[in-house]
């Protein structure tokens, strides 16, 4: 793997291979000494143009457990905020000898531009770009679902026949996009539920059903319910009237949660707005995978960095 820019470009075989490597990485995390020497001497730069402490520390932990040197480059308070271009920033990192760049950017496609521009030789990992994709989030979600369903027998398996319901702001969600592509590639069936204002106008090409009624979708007893974070600024742009109406209509409240079978997983990419898109009871229940998702994030990111940066770097 040369770069990890989107889950769209992953085929089933590559996705399962990455998840299997992540299983190995997870096994390492059970040991007393959690560190592997694999990326010793390699430099990984976390290039964050947007604040995201969670994603950054997850990548940082992943790189450090593979013995890579980690440089954190936050755009805030740096030359980037003084108008330095992505090109100049990239060339600076190139001159410093970065082997891998983990980029979080507010502009959709920025990781793609970085990877294809010729400004830099490093492998590029997309850590979330605008409203486009967040591939490692989807990989950790897939990993989490697979682990819950198959435990120690997960290796080599996809998610065939697993029914996943994703609820919330689909329009602006890079998590939703990456999950739609990855989960369906792995054989899952995906349904999306959102206010009509928060889905793209034309979704005919998406391999997912789209609905507006959360109660109907929950009545079909999905295997996984994934609640997306709703951002308060959306209601100021008239996407929905107010947070109370949103919570009533599209939130996983106690009543809705209680109607779910106990086998249904409840997922959330974090950070959660408790009481808005998800009630505390659902978030803290044994069905919730929220904390596993965080732990699995490190394993999946270790796998991604390992595949990108160890050994010969392929062209694929």
């Amino acid at each position, binding site marked *: 793997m040369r770069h990890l820019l989107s889950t769209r470009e992953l085929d089933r075989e590559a996705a399962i291979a990455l998840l299997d490597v992540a299983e190995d990485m997870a096994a390492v995390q059970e040991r007393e000494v959690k560190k592997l020497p694999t990326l010793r001497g390699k430099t990984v730069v976390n290039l964050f143009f947007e604040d995201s402490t969670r994603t950054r520390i997850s990548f940082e932990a992943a790189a450090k457990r593979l013995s890579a040197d980690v440089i954190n480059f936050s755009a805030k308070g740096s030359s980037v905020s003084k108008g330095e271009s*992505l090109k100049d920033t990239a060339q600076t990192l190139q001159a410093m000898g970065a082997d891998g760049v983990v980029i979080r950017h507010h502009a*959709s*496609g*920025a990781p793609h*531009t970085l990877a294809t521009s010729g400004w830099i030789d490093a492998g590029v990992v997309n850590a979330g770009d605008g*409203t486009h994709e967040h591939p490692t989030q989807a990989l950790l979600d897939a990993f989490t679902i697979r682990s819950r369903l198959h435990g120690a027998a997960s290796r080599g398996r996809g998610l065939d026949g697993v029914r996943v319901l994703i609820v919330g702001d689909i329009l602006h969600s*890079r998590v939703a996009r990456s999950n739609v592509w990855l989960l369906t590639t792995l054989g899952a069936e995906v349904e999306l539920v959102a206010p009509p204002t928060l889905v793209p106008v*034309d979704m005919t090409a998406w391999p997912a059903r789209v609905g507006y009624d959360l109660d109907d979708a929950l009545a079909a007893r999905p295997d996984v319910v994934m609640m997306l974070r709703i951002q308060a600024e959306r209601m100021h742009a008239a996407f929905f009237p107010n947070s109370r109406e949103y919570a009533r209509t599209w939130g996983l409240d106690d009543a809705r949660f209680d109607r779910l079978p106990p086998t249904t997983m409840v997922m959330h990419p974090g950070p959660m707005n408790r009481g808005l898109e998800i009630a505390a009871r659902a978030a803290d229940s044994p069905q919730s995978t929220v904390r596993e998702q965080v732990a699995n994030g490190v394993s999946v990111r270790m796998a991604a960095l390992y595949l990108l940066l160890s050994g010969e770097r392929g062209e694929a």
Partner: protein
Amino acid sequence: MPERILITGATLPSGERADLLLAEGTIAEMGSVADAAGATVVDADGLIALPGLVDLHTHLREPGYEQSETVLTGTQAAAAGGFTAVFAMANTFPVADTAGVVEQEMSLGRAAGYATVQPIGAVTVGLKGEQLAELGAMARSRANVRVFSDDGFCVSDPLLMRRALEYVKAFDGVIAQHAQEPRLTEGAQMNEGALSGELGLAGWPAVAEESIIARDVLLTEHVGSRLHVCHVSTAGSVEVIRWAKARGIDVTAEVTPHHLLLTEDLATSYDPRFKVNPPLRRAEDVEALRTALADGTIDIVATDHAPHPVEAKESEWQAAANGMVGLESALSVVHAAVVETGLMDWADVARVMSDAPARIGRLHGHGEAIAVGAAPGLTLYDPAAASEFDLRRLAGRSANSPYLGRRLPGRVVATFHGGYATFLDGAVRPHEEVARNAAAAWGVERG
């Protein structure tokens, strides 16, 4: 006086072959020219002669943005594309919203000598959409402005648009509207549709263009004025304009070469060379635009030549500037889009790229059919040459062309403006020569 030029064996738009003698500021002889002693002979065997092309929508960037283009470099690009006149958009700095700025623009064009530069005046002061600019003063100035546009911005306030349409009736002006409902396009990055949803780029919906055009044609009908619609980009806009014309509303419309050839899927690369406003649309839109140009619903092709320096395009998509250079490639792109596809012939091309734009802009001395006594502005085009479009074809200051690396048919061989060559054998003529010829042809001032 400039030298006499004899063009031999050219193919006219009608398909006839003829020799053409350019002398004494006119097409002096046509047909089989026997006596042309002392004339420079240009062999036009196999070449199509078109009346000098006229672009109703060019961004020359001067004054204010000379790192992107100047009047000199922009008109050199025009010459390389076969144009002998360009209408210079008003979004310079300072904005062309007073008689002083439009006169300066015109003078710079005369001093350059490569093409007639006809300034467009801003509709509103500073393009801010708040208050009418001095339209009358610009109309009465030496620049003789007839086309007014806030291009880059939409005159979105319906009352202000109504007033502008009414006001320009006093001097046979026209409002050239950049049709873009601003609220519906806040932060817009590409055409809104299935692809924008996948790429996570904020959508620019077709309705944001169509709703403004619908409003404006109705306003135009109500006040009995004249409207020109810039860079029509959607199939729905074509339907609205078709309806308006059928109703007898005095509306004209333009389409850019890029909207006739390129589609939104180029955004998949996130390569900012393909970022333009209005954005590239769907293949269905391209088809509708071609048909509309062929059937006369859309009157003209206009380039929306929009030069930008390298750094404005060498970035992530969202940060990149909108726009493409288009003068040098326009004729080849039109050739590919509507001639090779059999929708139009070369007489139609002469109409939509020379005659009609000159008439819409009330520009005299351009757009006349090739005939004895007509203005000696001509373009010689080799329709048989096909090649990969490369940097050598660009003559302006900026290289933000979406066609680099793309195979395009034909190429401009020579351009004659005012009876002298501005572009010959694939090269822009030196400025000293062109300026000297321009001064001789029109007795104009320098500088």
